[in-house]
Each structure stands twice: as C-alpha cells, then as structure tokens.
C-alpha cells in the first residue's frame, strides 16, 4: 500500500527547487499538512495497491497512526494515536457524521466503500480540529470525483473480487462522464461473505461463527460549472448492509443503513488572495438495528435499534497573502442520537421491558477554525492554528431524562460548553531533511455515550456503563516531533508524539449499583481522571537498492497510562512490518511480514494477554492493456502460513483470519 505523507506529492512544473521545498509549496497550496492514505479502488489508485478491492478498513490500518478495533470481519473502528473514536473527528468530505449503534458496531467507515473514496486524510492532534473539538486528531474520508475535463470523456470499470477464507464475493461497476461544464459519477459495489476461518489451532474448529455479512453501496456525484470559476456539486451515498455478524458481541446486525447527501458550491480564485471559497450543506441519516435472533442461547431476547441524523453546513476560504497561506472555516451541525432497547420475557403473559439507551440527545455545534502557514524563510515554515466552538446538548426525551435522573436527581436537560483549541508547528527544511516540532492545546466534549448513555453493556469487561452529563471538557496538551529524510534511493522518518490529557474521561466501577443487563458484573459510571498520558512513536524506512526493487520497514509503539492506576485499554504494543517489492513494466510482486509483540493488557477493562505473532503475505499484480481499455489482475495470499493469532485490538479475544487467497479483477474502459 502506498503511504503518502506531505512530502511525496506531485512536482511543480516550472520551479527548480530541491525536492522537499517543491513538496512543501505544493502541500501548502493544498493545505494538506497531515498524512494522506490513498484508497485503492477500481477507478483510480489501483495500480500500486496490492489489494485494490479490499475494504477501506485495511487501508486505514496500514497507517502508522491508525489502529483498527475488530469486533468481527466487518466494520472495524479506527483508533487514532491510540485513542478511540470519542477523541477524534471522523468526517466524509468535511461532513460530520455519527454512529447509530451504542455498542460501536458501526464506525463511519462501515457506511462507505472504496469506490466512493479517493483518499483518507489524517490530521493529528489539533490540526484535526477544523470541524470540531478533538484530542487525537481527525480522519477525513475524501470522496472520489472525476471532475470536469476539456474533452468529453466517458469511462468506467467493471470489477470483481473473491477471497477464499470467507468466500467473499465483490462485484461492482463505476461510470464516469465528464465534459467542460458538467460531470457525473456513478458507482455500485456489492459484497457478500460467509463466516471466516482463523488459522490452524490444536485441531479445533477454526470457523468463527457469526462473522458473515452482505453489503450494497451505490453512490453518485454530479457537478456543473455555473461560470468559469464557480461550480455546484451534489453527492449522495446510499449504503445498506444486512445480516452482518459480530463474533465479538452477543448480538448481530439485521440492518445498517446510511443515506449521506450533500450539495456544495465552490468559487475558485475568488480574488488575488482567496484561492477557494467552498460552502457545503449536508444531511445524513443512519439506521442501525441489532438483532439476536440468530444466536441460539441468549440471557433474554432483545431488540436494539438506533438512529443517528446529522445535518450541517460549513463555509471555508483558503488563500495566500505574501508569506501567508491561510484557511478559515466556519461550521455548524446538529446531530440527533436515539437508541432503544426492548426485552422480551420468556413468559408471554409478562409485559415487554423497554428503556432508552441513548435518550434522544441533540448535539448542536458551531465553530470557527483558522490556520495560517507562514513561510519565515526558504527553510522555516511556521503553522499557527486556533479555533473556538460552542457546543450544546439537549435531552429531548422526557422518558430518557427521567431515567438519567435516577442517577442525577437534579439533572437539567440542556448543557452548554465552549471548546477552544490552539496549536503551533515549526517545520525546518534543509536539503533532504525535514524536521518538525509542534505543540497544541485542545478541548473536546464528552460523546453521547459518555455523557448520556444508559446502561450500555461493554462485553469486554462485562460492565454496564452509565453516562455522566455533568462532566467538564476533556483537555489535551500535545507535543510532537518528527524528522524525515528522502533522496532517490532512501527515505526514512521518525516520529514521536505525547498527549497529556486532563480531566480524562473513563468509566470506573461504582459499588452498590446493580447492573441492568442480566449477565453483567456491575455498573461503571463515566468520571474524569486527573490526567492520562499517551505516547506514540513510529519509525519507517524505504530503500531502493536497485531500480526495480524496494525494501521498506515500519515499526510503531504506543503507551498509555492514567491516574488511579489506570492502564489504558486498546493501546498497540510494538508492531512492525517489513516488505520487499519488485516492479517492472506493469507488473509487481510484493512479499511482507508483519507482527507484534505481546500487549500490555488492561485487566480493568477486560483485556487479556495476546501472544506475540508474525504473519507472512504475498501479492502479485499485472496490468494488461487492451487498446484503449485495461485489465488489472491481482492475486495474493494473506497469512501465508495459516497462523492462528489474535491482536490487541481484537474485541473479546476473537482470532484473526487464517490463510486467505484473494483475486481482484478490474476492467477499465
């Protein structure tokens, strides 16, 4: 997979600067300070990807900054800098969008497909606060658009993939139409998989039950030029998954459905200093229905539907003035989160039991974010970023408010907060070297579950979690330092960041309160610890000894600890990946080994020790030109030796996939 950081982008045609300075200029123009992950799909970027039709999750996982929490084969939750989704902002093209499941079965990445996206942009720390208050950073899933073209162009692709381990079949097609004044993209993907099998293990059955899924996705984007500089664009994604299994949880999903729509207006080169003015209005609607009807033995049958609706608007300008390259963003959104739980007693004469696990909470946010990149000299670049936002919560349901008043008798239905952030980064370019140092401060609001959740069962530690609506903002101070080197044959980078989080939000056990869920051990209520520390380190190098050969190695390590002797959960142990790639003409072959040491498990949060492991992968790719069209064929094997293993972020100890042979076929026209 192609990891692109801000210093490996396109070259400027008419400047003769050293390589890094060229890249610096280009990245400023694009305001891309963070890490870009190219998403392989049938239309673009498939050439260099070993697995063009793998899920978006796999792409994100290959970043040194992202870990994926796996509750099954489907819908992994991205963790940024060792922190879960409450501490980061995940957007689709700048649109805020929130999960509808109280058990985190539906991270936002599960509602999009590769065919909808071209890349994912990861911003760390306060650089990620363009659309809201964050601690860890942000992941923006950027939509693919073919855009306008000088000549009329019609193109597309038909693709198919197959994976042996879970018999996953993927089918789809894309269609693009571009003229000077108009373009339209249409794409469709269908995925269907059965249960997957873990590696060989002491002669036991390897099939992981309840890990099947079926998913359909269709998306369309269309744009029209209103004038030479102005354009209007509309986009919609509809994603529908049914019969999705979650081996790491006691329930599966009968329906996970999302409608994501937006309309945006762009004014290019508005003035000498303003390069782009973009305004976007959007709406998304997610329905998520949990279902235990496939599980033969359950403590009590239950229905758990959840709904999340978000609407918002943002307007931003970016431009330059003398030594400054700036961006200002005004954004506002409103989200409504509602989740219910109905339990069905064995005795048919007894009434059903009902409660709201998310009590119909509205979240309203309005904020302003400003970034200025100042070229102090040809070698020094100073970035200053700051923002402020108003955050407002309201419990709309009386029934939900009354339930929380069992714990908080004087609870008011509304709460206001002010979220502030400020950060600065200094970059130094010298020859082939780039050094960066940065410091930032930011605040985030508690999530809907952290503030208002009502008896949410965490199966990992087997406790019911209850929200705390009276918490203060969580505050984070972060320091980062990195250095990078690149020349024609060799590149290396090293990075360390440190987060000192105050009023750290975490659930802690409360004696004397009865659990609600039948099998749970008790109740944990969210509270704020004095502070927590998270350290992330990563190292990477790539070496091209000969023209066709590339050798690369990456390693990373995280550490997390908080007061009250709290070992933070889901912290990645030392992990590494070593890869050798050969490419010639339109063919490449790639072999890799990835692995990890034992984890520093947090017993308090139900984590167990996971043994150190290493697995081997191999991939081949070939592009065949057929006149104006091309056929791409990829073949590969993951976990070559069928090793049985589980990682620190496998929920509830479920094992990872055993040997998997896959093929991708893409026909481009």
């Amino acid at each position: 997979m192609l990891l692109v950081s801000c210093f490996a982008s396109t070259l400027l045609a008419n400047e003769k600067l050293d390589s890094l300075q060229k890249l610096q200029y280009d990245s400023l123009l694009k305001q891309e300070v963070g890490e870009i992950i190219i998403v392989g799909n049938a239309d673009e970027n498939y050439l260099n990807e070993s697995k063009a039709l793998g899920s978006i999750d796999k792409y994100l996982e290959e970043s040194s900054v992202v870990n994926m929490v796996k509750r099954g084969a489907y819908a992994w939750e991205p963790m940024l800098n060792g922190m879960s989704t409450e501490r980061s902002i995940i957007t689709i093209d700048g649109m805020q969008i929130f999960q509808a499941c109280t058990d985190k079965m539906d991270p936002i990445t599960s509602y999009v497909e590769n065919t909808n996206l071209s890349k994912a942009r990861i911003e760390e720390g306060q650089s990620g606060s363009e659309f809201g208050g964050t601690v860890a950073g942000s992941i923006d899933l950027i939509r693919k658009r073919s855009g306008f073209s000088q000549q009329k162009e019609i193109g597309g692709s038909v693709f198919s993939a197959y994976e042996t381990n879970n018999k996953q079949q993927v089918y789809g097609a894309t269609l693009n139409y571009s003229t000077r004044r108009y373009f339209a993209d249409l794409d469709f993907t269908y995925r269907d998989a059965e249960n997957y099998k873990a590696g060989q293990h002491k002669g036991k059955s390897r099939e992981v039950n309840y890990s099947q899924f079926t998913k359909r996705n269709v998306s369309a984007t269309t744009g029209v030029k209103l004038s030479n500089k102005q354009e209007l664009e509309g986009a919609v994604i509809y994603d529908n998954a049914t019969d999705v299994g979650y081996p790491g949880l006691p329930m599966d999903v009968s329906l996970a459905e999302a409608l994501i729509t937006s309309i945006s207006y762009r004014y290019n080169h508005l003035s000498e200093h303003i390069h782009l003015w973009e305004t976007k209005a959007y709406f998304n609607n997610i329905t998520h229905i949990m279902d235990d009807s496939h599980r033969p033995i359950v403590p009590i049958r239950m229905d758990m539907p959840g709904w999340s609706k978000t609407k918002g608007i943002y307007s931003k300008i970016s431009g330059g003035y003398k030594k400054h390259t700036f961006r200002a963003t005004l954004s506002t959104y409103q989200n409504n989160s509602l989740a219910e739980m109905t339990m069905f007693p064995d005795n048919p004469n007894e009434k059903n039991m009902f409660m709201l696990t998310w009590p119909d909470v509205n979240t309203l946010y309005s904020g302003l974010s400003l970034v200025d990149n100042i070229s102090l000299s040809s070698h020094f670049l100073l970035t200053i970023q700051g923002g402020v936002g108003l955050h407002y919560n309201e419990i709309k349901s009386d029934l939900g408010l009354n339930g929380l008043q069992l714990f908080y008798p004087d609870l008011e239905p509304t709460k206001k907060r002010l979220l502030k952030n400020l950060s600065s980064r200094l970059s130094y370019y010298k020859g082939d070297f780039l050094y960066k140092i940065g410091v930032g401060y930011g605040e985030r609001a508690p999530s809907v579950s952290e503030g208002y959740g009502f008896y949410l069962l965490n199966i990992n530690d087997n406790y019911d979690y209850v929200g705390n609506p009276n918490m203060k903002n969580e505050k984070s101070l972060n320091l980062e330092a990195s250095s990078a080197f690149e020349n024609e044959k060799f590149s290396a980078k090293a990075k360390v960041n440190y987060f000192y989080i105050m009023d750290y939000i975490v659930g802690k056990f409360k004696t004397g309160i009865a659990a609600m869920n039948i099998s749970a051990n008790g109740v944990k209520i969210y509270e704020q610890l004095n502070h927590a520390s998270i350290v992330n380190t990563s190292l990477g190098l790539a070496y091209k000894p000969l023209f066709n050969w590339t050798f690369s190695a990456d390693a990373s390590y995280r550490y997390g600890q908080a007061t009250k002797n709290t070992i933070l959960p889901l912290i990645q142990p030392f992990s590494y990946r070593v890869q050798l790639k050969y490419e010639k003409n339109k063919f490449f072959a790639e072999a890799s080994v990835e692995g990890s040491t034992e984890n520093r498990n947090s017993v308090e949060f139900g984590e167990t020790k996971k043994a150190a492991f290493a697995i081997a992968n191999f991939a081949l790719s070939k592009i065949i030109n057929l006149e104006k069209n091309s056929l791409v064929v990829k073949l590969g094997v993951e976990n070559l030796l069928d090793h049985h293993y589980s990682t620190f972020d496998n929920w509830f100890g479920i094992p990872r996939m055993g040997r998997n042979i896959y093929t991708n076929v893409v026909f481009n026209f």
Partner: protein
Amino acid sequence: MASLLFTSCSKEDDEVSPKNVNEKDNLQLIESIGNKGYIVDLLNSSGQLKVGHNKIYLRLKDSNGNAVNSTTIDWMPMMTMNMGGMPHEHSCPFSNLSKVSGQENLYEGYIVFTMASDAPNSFWNLEVKVTVDSQDVVFNDKLNVIDVNSDYNKKFTTVMGSDSVNYILALLEPTNPKIGVNDIVVALFKKGQNQDFPIVDNYTIKVDPRMPGMNNHSAPGSQDMRQESDGFYHGKVGLSMSGYWKINLILQDASDITVRGEPIKEGNLESSLNFKLEF
C-alpha cells in the same frame, strides 16, 4: 351522569395524588342508594370498587336531583361472611368523610376493602348516616368489590408481623408508573383490639424495587417511606425501565425493629412483604 367541575382541590387530594388534580371531573357512578326521598350517589374514577385502597366520593341529593346539604355525615363498611352457617361480621380500614371545598353536597373519603365480595356467602354492606334538616337519614346497600390482583399486579397485602400484629398495606402511588424516580405512597393499618383498623404511626417502610425477569436487578433512586401529615407513608421508588417490577418492602416499627420483610440477597430473591406493578 353529570360531570363535575371544580376550581380547587382539597389539601388531602394534593398530598395523596398530586397528579390527579382533575380526578373529580370524570367521576363514574358506583351505586345510588335511596331513602326517605333522599339519594346518596357513590362515585369514583372507575365506577368499580376493588380490594385495596379506594378513594370514594359521595354526593347527596333529593329525589329531584337537587343538591342537599347535611350537617353530619358518617359511613361504615361491614362485611358479612357466612362460615359454616355462622355469620361473622368485620369491617376494614376507612377514613372519615370530609366535605369537598367549593361544593355544597360532595364528600370524599377512602375505604380499604380487605377482601372481595363472594355472593351469596360473603358480601360488603355500606351504611351511610346523614343529618338533613335536623333529621337523621340512614342509607344501606350491598357493594360489589372485586379482586384485581394478578401475577404482575398487587396493590394490597395483609401480613402478620413478628410482633403478632396483623398489618394491612395498600399501595396508593404510583398509579401511572414511569421510568425514573416515582413517588410511592403506602397506607399502613393494623387490625386493632376493638374491631377497628387504625392507621399505624411512626413506622418506616424500606423500599427495594426488583425486576424478576432481569436477574432480579434493582435501580438507584429509591428512598425509604416515612409517615407524613396525611397519615400515609411517602417515599421514592426508582424504576429504570418499563416492565414488571416487584416492590420489596421491609416494615420497621417506631423503634426501628423489623416486624416484616427481609433484604434481597443471594438466596433470597424477594421479601415476604411486597407489591407488584407492571407498566
């Protein structure tokens, strides 16, 4: 049946059922009893009398339907049981009648029927005595009292305490339970020495709500019941979800000695003193 409109509620009503401020607007007729040209209407919100606490209104009128004012008014419920040919009579807890303010001829009180009618072997009789124009008028009629208890609904119980006293408890609130903190009101009586059923004073009733269908879990938010000026015991019961709940109680006397009921723990899933409700 004429609808009755009132602009104010009596203080007792506010204490007992603060939500039922407009209860008097929709009264249903239970019985009409006539004598000497006068009629007594018995009314309540459902038109039906049941085992347990019943709030009852009385309206006095003449045969033309005109309001009649009486200087005194008393009532007495009495059950007659034929047991093996020997008739046996007993009463039950009941309140005095008081005039409803703002109305000339409407009176209110309560009766806690301790068992259901079972004609012809056992039946309830209500005697009402009034004084109109210096004349005593006595009304008598049989009343039909039904048992509404079920596996999931129990608002009335009689138990023997460890002090050999027969206690009678009736659940007045919550009538419309909700998720959250509910007011709980219980009327506590004992079978007295003189065929009377006095209110028991200065006891404490501890509350522990449990959901038998969900591993007997409880919820936070409950507060022990203490007697208030209306004579009833008031506290709070916390219910975290809708469904069937068993309200376990522990009855402690004025010296804090437990006379009935046990705490819930491993091996003891319910108290020997409890109510049941479902919503």
